[in-house]
């Protein structure tokens, strides 16, 4: 090829790619996956423009975000459990405040001031270059008596931002927009302060645009370029933040997640999805995870406000004027976004946490006994030093404990001279029998045994009419229940009488959603018992998975179901009517077998037939569903 042709081609290629990419919150032109891509769809063009302008005033454009202090409600709580009072921020933009003095003129409309900011400005190093990277361009709020604090030039309020900061001399160069007339140097009042607002937002945005934007989209709508190009046939879609619904949280169904929930998702990833673990952000970027969490919350609030303004403008034409929208924006921000939505709970324990169920306490007591035999032999270790659960167990002072519910090891401990089980035993006698029973059984084994008794009850719940788990998850937990084959009502706005196109369940983002295949052992929200407890007890926000606490009621029952769910991948999904286990799924033989299960020594298959099945009836007892009662 001739050189000049080559040169021309290269130049045109380069020129085409020249210039920085334009970030925009506008949705992509192509509608993908039948989801609600554009929250402003269906609005008149002027109304749409008004709504967009209001959102831009409150949140800024994609290239230049705005920190709106209405969202950063700071609640000062004094809690007797905590030392001192505590500040709770709905959104932490990153605020640093310090008094300003001695302004001098700078270049081209900027001016310099001496700032009494703390020495450690951000959590990053003292390195001036790094600090400037973090805070350059961040907005400044001038609070004080000086007339420049609320100044206007041509009726536009003057905005200040950081151009440069020298941490050694505490000299701050402040840029202004619009530019001040030539020669004016604002002078600072006596105790005027400059408040730096938004460096956490800037850092979070920076990390988000690098690591998250390509899947989650610039606006956090789940429509990033990677999503559009990779996920057309694949599931699940990246999360759309704009409704404020996040699936794997520790809070009640429908509530906004806590910061820990978001942090956990980002740090651990979601196994079985395209969301990888970003634990490296914790090490690489000092404070990076926290900043990203704030940015995600901010994007979510932006999306919510956009949707609420569109709804308000759509419901009444008088609501669609810029003045009405500005008023509505303030109201929605205060009430819906902050108070009902993202305002943190007033107690430190915001997350749903189980209480100690009865099984947990027997389990804990037994484990303690087996692990602390040497303590028991110490005569100076008096009864009042025993843990409460152990004391209950040892003295059987809890009337509600019947012998049927005790594990065999404990029965062995308590049975001596073939006497009545309910006799109180002395501590030395107990010690003797603990030693006898302690033939290398570890507390883990005991927990497995307890789990299988509990798991059998959980299976009863799983298949019962009270808790229709099998309707979606299927008899064997494979995620193939009858609901996955039924056409469901469409929840899309404006499609009141219609159904979704494909049979099966859909999520709140109007995408097909398959119930979890419990046999795979892959749990997106985490595999800890606590995580499964939360899924069963509170449901999964934004999906048809409902909260079952209203039906299961007690923690014991919920733990039964949790133990069953956790045992499915390894122990199979079903027990036959004699309490024998048979495997289904990939572990499995296809037909039930009456052979005892050999795999786990802690299992005790049906040496005890009817008695067990009677006591393992779920409460509240309803005679209709107990298929195992022997006549």
């Amino acid at each position, binding site marked *: 090829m001739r050189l000049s042709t080559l040169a021309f081609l*290269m130049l045109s290629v380069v020129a085409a790619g020249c210039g920085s990419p334009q970030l925009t919150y506008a949705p992509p032109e192509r509608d993908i996956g039948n989801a609600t891509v554009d929250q402003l769809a269906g609005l008149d063009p002027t109304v749409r423009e008004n709504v967009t302008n209001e959102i831009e005033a409150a949140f800024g454009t994609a290239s*230049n*975000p705005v920190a709106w202090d209405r969202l950063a409600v700071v609640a000062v709580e004094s809690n007797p459990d905590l030392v001192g009072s505590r500040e709770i921020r709905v959104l932490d933009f990153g605020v640093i405040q310090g008094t300003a003095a001695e302004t001098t003129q700078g270049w081209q409309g900027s001016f310099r001031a001496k700032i009494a900011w703390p020495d450690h400005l951000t959590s990053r190093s003292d390195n001036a270059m790094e600090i400037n990277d973090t805070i*350059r361009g961040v907005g400044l709020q001038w609070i004080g008596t000086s007339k420049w604090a609320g100044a206007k030039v041509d009726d536009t309020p003057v905005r200040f931002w950081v151009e440069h900061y020298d941490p050694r001399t505490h000299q701050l160069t402040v840029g202004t927009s619009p530019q001040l007339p030539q020669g004016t140097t604002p002078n600072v009042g006596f105790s005027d302060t400059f408040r730096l607002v938004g460096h956490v937002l800037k850092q979070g945005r920076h990390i988000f645009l690098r690591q998250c934007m390509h899947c989650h989209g610039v606006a956090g709508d789940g429509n990033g370029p990677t999503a559009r190009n990779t996920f057309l046939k694949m599931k699940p879609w990246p999360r759309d933040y704009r409704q404020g619904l996040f699936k794997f949280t520790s809070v009640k169904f429908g509530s906004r997640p806590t910061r820990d929930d978001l942090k956990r998702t980002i740090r651990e990833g979601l196994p079985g999805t395209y969301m990888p673990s970003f634990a490296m952000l914790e090490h690489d970027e000092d404070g990076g995870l926290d900043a990203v969490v704030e940015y995600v919350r901010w994007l979510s609030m932006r999306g919510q406000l956009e949707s609420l303004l569109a709804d308000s403008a759509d419901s009444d034409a008088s609501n669609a004027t810029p003045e009405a929208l500005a008023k509505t924006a303030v109201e929605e921000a205060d009430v819906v976004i902050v108070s009902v939505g993202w305002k943190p709970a007033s107690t430190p324990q915001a997350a749903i946490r189980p209480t100690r169920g009865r099984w947990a306490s027997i389990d804990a007591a037994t484990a303690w006994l087996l692990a602390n035999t040497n303590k028991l032999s110490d005569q100076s270790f008096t009864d009042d030093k025993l843990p409460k659960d152990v004391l209950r167990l040892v003295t059987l002072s809890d009337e509600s404990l019947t012998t049927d519910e005790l594990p065999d090891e404990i029965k062995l401990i308590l049975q001596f001279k073939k006497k009545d089980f309910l006799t109180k035993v002395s501590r030395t006698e107990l010690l003797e029998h603990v030693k006898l029973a302690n033939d290398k059984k570890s507390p883990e084994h005991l927990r497995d045994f307890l789990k299988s008794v509990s798991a059998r009850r959980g299976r009863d719940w799983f298949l019962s009419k009270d808790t229709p788990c099998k309707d979606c998850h299927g008899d064997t937990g494979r995620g193939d229940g009858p609901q996955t084959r039924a056409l469901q009502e469409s929840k899309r706005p404006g499609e009141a009488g219609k159904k979704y196109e494909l049979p099966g*369940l859909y999520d709140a983002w109007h995408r097909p959603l398959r119930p979890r295949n419990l046999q795979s052992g892959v749990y997106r929200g985490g595999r800890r018992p606590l995580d499964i407890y939360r899924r069963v007890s509170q449901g999964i926000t934004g999906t*048809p998975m409902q909260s079952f606490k209203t039906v299961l009621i007690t923690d014991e029952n919920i733990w039964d179901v949790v133990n069953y769910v956790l045992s499915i991948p390894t122990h199979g999904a079903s027990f036959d009517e004699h309490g024998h286990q048979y495997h289904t799924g990939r572990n499995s033989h296809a037909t039930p077998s009456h052979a005892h299960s050999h795999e786990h020594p802690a299992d005790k298959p049906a040496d005890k037939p009817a008695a067990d099945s009677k006591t393992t009836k779920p409460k509240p007892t309803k005679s209709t569903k107990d298929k195992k009662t022997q006549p």
Partner: protein
Amino acid sequence: MMRFPIPPPAATLALFLTLVGCGEQAPPVKIGVRVSSDLAENSADGGTGKVAGYGTLTGTITFSGEAPTLAAIIALGMAKRDSTVCAKDEAIQDDSFVIGDGGGLDNVFVYLAKKPRGTKSPESLEPIDFDQKNCRFTNHASIVHVGQDVMVKNSDGVSHNTHTYPKRNNGDNFAVSPNNSTGVAVSFVVAENRPFRIGCDIHGWMQAWQLALDHPYGRVTTDGGKFTIESIPAGQHRVVIWHELAEILETVDVTIEVDGTTSLNKAFDASKFKLP
């Protein structure tokens, strides 16, 4: 050729690299600050101004034209699931479009768009019932006050789950055990702009609509499309007429006279509705 020639491709490469470099320069990000005090203070509506008196709004919403007959959602005995309970003794009718005598349209929400000044706050908020029988929500369209408990009950022998989809409030999704006559309490914290859907994820055909208001001036048309709203503060108000198959049918400005009765009768034809 020069003695130490610089090959032409190298020149092009150098030019290319320079130009590529120039594309990287992006303007620094500016984080703006929007301060509450910059915004004009909004005056809360429903302020403390005295009100001259109260009046009544009454009327009928009708459907003009040939009333369509909707097929039952599930015919008698034809339920594919839970057939021992659903549609066992009677078919499950379609409640989405109920027309009474004289073409009156039931289950239409008529409510004031905004809380008017002089609203009498309700003395007590009794819980309202929301039952499920024959795999159907008994209360297909209802209006609740914010803070008022909705007792979700279940008179069926199978579990149902109640999944709400409000816009401004947080949604809820919980299971209700069979034959639960006490019910599970649900309430709403914020007023909604328009009615929201309630569904059952287990029995997908079950749908109901509910509206949460921060004032008591809303009614659902019943008994042939009739509604009456009493004790409305006198003055001009914006009234929204809403039906599930049409979303907002119309927003009307009405004037309430002191101790007077304003009537609001509207008729809508099939073009307004997305009939199934």
